[in-house]
């Protein structure tokens, strides 16, 4: 397996501000990697450092076996799709597409042929003679993509390319970009703040916060075994419920910090006498039939979208339950909730790191 992009110990400072902290990341050829995190987490800085639009202060950046730390962007052979698309407003779509080829000195007829081929893939064939200002948002997005595709670069860099599109088009373009990636056998790095985009498009998701990679792995790996409270809360929608809890002296049971008696007998043991945060996803909570183990909570609100029902409890902290279909209960009633213990995520209350129960 060839590593297309490799970062080791990459650091980036803006003056005294430490923007990227010891980033290690390997991207295999053909992989679709999503960098995801809240704004200011450093994901865009990392992407721009790959591109060469920002210099890195320390560490190594290797692209296709070549150390690229001090190589200018134009010699890195990477293509970038900008959030603003950055189309050249004074050029037609065709001129936008062939710009990189013309810079390289490729003949006009050849460049035109390449533009027509790419336009056929991305559905721009009828728009080649238009100017960017005459295009819709979705069309501009396609031009930006085509401009990257025409170059056959070592990797595609996407900087939140869908954030200027409306919701329906965004979902559509998500599939289209992924399909293009597969068709071209490309290597892609995709920055987004939308975890759904990251989960649905990527082979490998990198979750960042404050310049640090909190966790990276396959999308479902992150969903199933989040390494810490931040990742657990960031991946998945609606967000995971967190309930403060404390283990008993033998570590075989757990008391949830909710009103009422909420002791949970554990199937596996946890460290004894520990302050914990227990995480349970809204979709993993179910109503219990009376007599079954579980805990009783008052209902604050019920919202139904038809297919799904969202139940919010009147507890502190608030708990959200997502149920398929519809329910007959009303706000103010009390319901008994239960869950499969294999879906329970346990984090240390102080370090917020994941704790694995032992058998």
């Amino acid at each position: 397996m060839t590593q297309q992009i490799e970062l080791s110990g990459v650091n980036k400072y803006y003056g005294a501000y430490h923007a990227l902290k010891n980033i290690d990341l390997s991207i295999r050829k053909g992989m679709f990697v999503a960098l995801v995190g809240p704004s200011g987490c450093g994901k865009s800085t990392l992407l721009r450092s790959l591109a060469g639009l920002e210099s890195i202060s320390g560490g190594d950046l290797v692209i296709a076996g070549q150390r690229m730390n001090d190589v200018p962007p134009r010699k890195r052979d990477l293509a970038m799709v900008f959030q603003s698309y950055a189309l050249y407003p004074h050029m037609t779509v065709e001129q936008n597409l062939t710009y990189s080829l013309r810079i390289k000195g490729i003949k006009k007829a050849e460049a035109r042929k390449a533009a027509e081929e790419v336009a056929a893939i991305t559905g721009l064939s009828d728009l080649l003679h238009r100017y960017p200002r005459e295009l819709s948002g979705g069309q501009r997005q396609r031009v930006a993509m085509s401009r990257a595709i025409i170059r056959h670069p070592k990797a595609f860099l996407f900087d939140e390319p869908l954030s200027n599109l409306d919701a329906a088009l965004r979902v559509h373009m998500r599939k289209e970009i992924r399909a293009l990636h597969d068709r071209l056998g490309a290597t892609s790095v995709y920055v987004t703040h939308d975890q759904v985009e990251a989960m649905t498009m990527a082979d490998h998701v990198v979750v960042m916060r404050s310049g640090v990679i909190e966790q990276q792995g396959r999308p479902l790996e992150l969903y199933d075994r989040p390494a810490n409270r931040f990742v657990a809360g960031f991946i998945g929608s609606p967000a995971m419920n967190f309930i403060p809890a404390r283990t008993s002296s033998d570590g075989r049971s757990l008391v949830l910090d909710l009103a009422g008696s909420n002791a949970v007998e554990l199937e596996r043991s946890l460290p004894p006498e520990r302050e914990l945060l227990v995480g349970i996803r809204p979709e993993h909570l179910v109503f219990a039939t009376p007599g079954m183990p579980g805990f009783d909570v008052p209902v604050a609100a019920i919202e139904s979208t038809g297919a799904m029902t969202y139940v919010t409890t009147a507890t502190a902290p608030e708990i959200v339950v997502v149920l398929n279909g519809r329910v007959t209960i009303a706000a103010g009633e009390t319901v008994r909730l239960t869950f499969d213990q294999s879906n329970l995520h346990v984090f240390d209350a102080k370090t917020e790191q994941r704790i694995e129960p032992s058998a």
Partner: protein
Amino acid sequence: MRRMISSVRDGRGFDLMLVGVPFAFLFALAGLPLIYNILMSFQEVDMFSLGSFIRPFVGFDNYAALFRQPETWPILTNTLVFVVGSIAGQFAIGFGLALFFWTSFPGASWLRGLFLVSWVMPGLVVGAIWNWILSGDFGVLNFLLRESGLIDGNIFWRSDPNFSLWAVIIANIWLGTSFNMILLSVGLSAIPGDLYEAAEMDGANAWQRFWTITLPMMRSTIGAIIALGLIFTLQQFDLFAAITDGGPNNSSNVAQYWAWDLSFRQYDFGRGATISVIMTVFVMFAALVYVRSTRHEVRG
């Protein structure tokens, strides 16, 4: 009358008034003198008929006579050299400075502001300063050229017919450069930065980025600045009055200065007006270019 008052009171007709007032102002202070000027170019005007409006009509006699004068073509050539030289110098140096300050080093915007000092100075003051700089015997310019080995003897900038026009052009370039720079700076800062990043990713080096992004994106600004430059250089009068007085022997005389000289020194108002009309045609053309280039702005 009641209708007129109510039309203003209820807002209807107010729009007409908003257009009407400036229109009347322009007509009285620019339109009438212009028409009067054109009229005079077709009349025989002398000191005694100056006060009357109706004067002997002479058709194109003034124009014909003007072009029979031996100094006409040299002066029109001077005007062309003055306009082209001034605009080229102002634009080239102004664009260079604008690009220089665009790199935004510490204090760049502050320094750029200081450059405007030359533009806010009255032409006569600028002329006086340049008289000293250009002075043949003790001028700083001669000193610099001599010390750097570019010339052997002193150049008498203001009294040598080969240099007198260039003396005014140099001063005018100095006067107009900062205005060019400010307008071009505004144009440069309006280009989105991500275009350069995209071009850089697409493999363009600094030189290619300048030719393929900066220049085409600046097209409307450049068109406007050159049209304005043409208008401003054709208006330049103070520097001629202060530096060479059009001499020696008309070697630095230009149309606008000659028009004034004919009218108010030689009291040949007919011919003075005739030159003004010819110049008006050129300025109208420049104004047309200006309006067109500001209308065709390219913005993504």
